[in-house]
């Protein structure tokens, strides 16, 4: 992706570029804001408002590092402002230095839903069918281990084992793609 092209697109209010960036980063930015604010609706508001500002103040936007860093740093700052405003002290969060931008070397893979989906799906395909089925039910459909066991007529213990096996396989297959810093690990 050519960053200059995207940044110029924003500065000249190119609707296609704007919409593209929006689709590409929206869910990742929301996930990030949700991590900080702990609220889905707030997260969406924060990210949407950021994009409104991006469009309206197009000419004043100064993107010094990468677009991705700019977006995530903005969302982080806006989320922290929100917390301050709400006087909800971020006690459960030990956030990084507030003014610091995110590390420069973040891989975009982990912030764009489309890319993350691609990598994870490729890894899931390598799992044995039963193992994959159980893992998806657990991690993506939100079923409890006992519910999965009942549904498939197997023991809860088997379900647990399969999930462990899936994680082991994913660890091996995903690791080459893993960035140095993972989004969610920035916030402990």
């Amino acid at each position, binding site marked *: 992706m050519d960053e200059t092209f995207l940044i110029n697109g924003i500065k000249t209010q190119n609707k296609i570029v704007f919409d593209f960036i929006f689709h590409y980063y929206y869910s990742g930015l*929301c996930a990030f804001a949700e991590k900080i604010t702990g609220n889905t609706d707030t997260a969406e508001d924060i990210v949407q408002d950021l994009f409104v500002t991006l469009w309206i103040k197009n000419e004043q936007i100064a993107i010094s590092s990468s677009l991705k860093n700019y977006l995530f740093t903005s969302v982080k700052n806006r989320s922290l402002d929100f917390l301050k405003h709400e006087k909800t002290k971020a006690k459960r969060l030990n956030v990084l230095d507030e003014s610091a931008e995110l590390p420069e070397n973040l891989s975009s893979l982990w912030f764009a839903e489309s890319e993350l989906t691609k990598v994870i799906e490729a890894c899931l395909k390598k799992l044995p069918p039963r193992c994959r089925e159980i893992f998806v039910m657990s991690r993506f459909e939100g079923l409890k281990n006992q519910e999965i066991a009942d549904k498939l007529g197997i023991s809860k213990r088997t379900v647990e084992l399969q999930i462990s096996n899936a994680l082991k396989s994913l660890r091996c297959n995903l690791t080459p793609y*893993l960035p140095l810093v993972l989004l969610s690990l920035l916030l402990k």
Partner: protein
Amino acid sequence: MKKSKIEEMLPFYFEGDLPKKDNTEVEKWKASSDTNQKIFEESKKAWESISLLRVMKKYDSGKALQKVHKKIGKQNKNILTVIQRIAAILILPFIISTLYFALQNQNTSTTDTNNWYTITSPAGMRSDYTLPDGTKVYLNSQTNLSFPIAFSGKTRDVILNGEAYFEVAENKKKPFVVNTGKINIEVTGTEFKASNYSEESLIEIVLVSGSIHLFQGDYSHSKENITRLQPGEKASYITNEDRLYIENVKVDKYISWKDGILMFRNDSMKDVVRRLNRWFNADIKLTGNDLKDYVYTGTFENESINQILELLKISAPIDYRINKRQKKDDQTFSKMEIEIIQK
């Protein structure tokens, strides 16, 4: 404890589902070697990335983008409101104690025009002038105003073709008469704006303060009073229907041009285009039927036509195209041709 046993526990460790005893086991295992530490970190990253994807999947960027476009629309309106407020402050001081008319008509009257001057404001320009009796006139784009060398008769007659704003020097004995053809205006001493563009079949007269008489015919010989206008009233005369409508209006948008301000207040796109054409001496065409019904509000002071078009574009479902000016046979250039297209 065996490595495989610990690895089995990891998902539950990450989820916080393990009994305290097992938690301690995992941490002990993790701390016991670099390899274990590495396995732990990588497992955690894998697990977190799965969770992250799951969180992301909740968000619908398509729906959200629609909301963002709506919010942008609203913000743009807010920006225009700010401009309007500034403009209102600029205009207010001169609305007070002034009187204006807008008047538009076709042919001029039978008044004897020997020894008359004609002053002209070219297309796309505005100018001002002081008449022999001290009356100040502002001429809008493409306007002619004719008047005698001296106001020697019983009345002070002027002939208007286009749009003008008058600050009439008071003289109750010698009424100031604006001849526009179908409808003429009589004033004794006040300020007003009048206009009559021959290509338009609409005459508008807007009175800000004071009072004026509208009449038909020649002032001295065949005067037929029609009505008297009150401040804040606008008389619209549709020439091809021969009908006169009177309504109360906010006068500022009709007079702001005098101070170089272009003001739209719930004006139809058709009207906006008509006025932009005159203001900039441009040739704007509207493509798309629904556009004609679109209503626009905004105030412009020093903006170029391109800037105005850009503002229109973000607040209305339109796009525009500017065609290059053509050199005509007489070596002059054609008007700026602009096409406004419905999106």
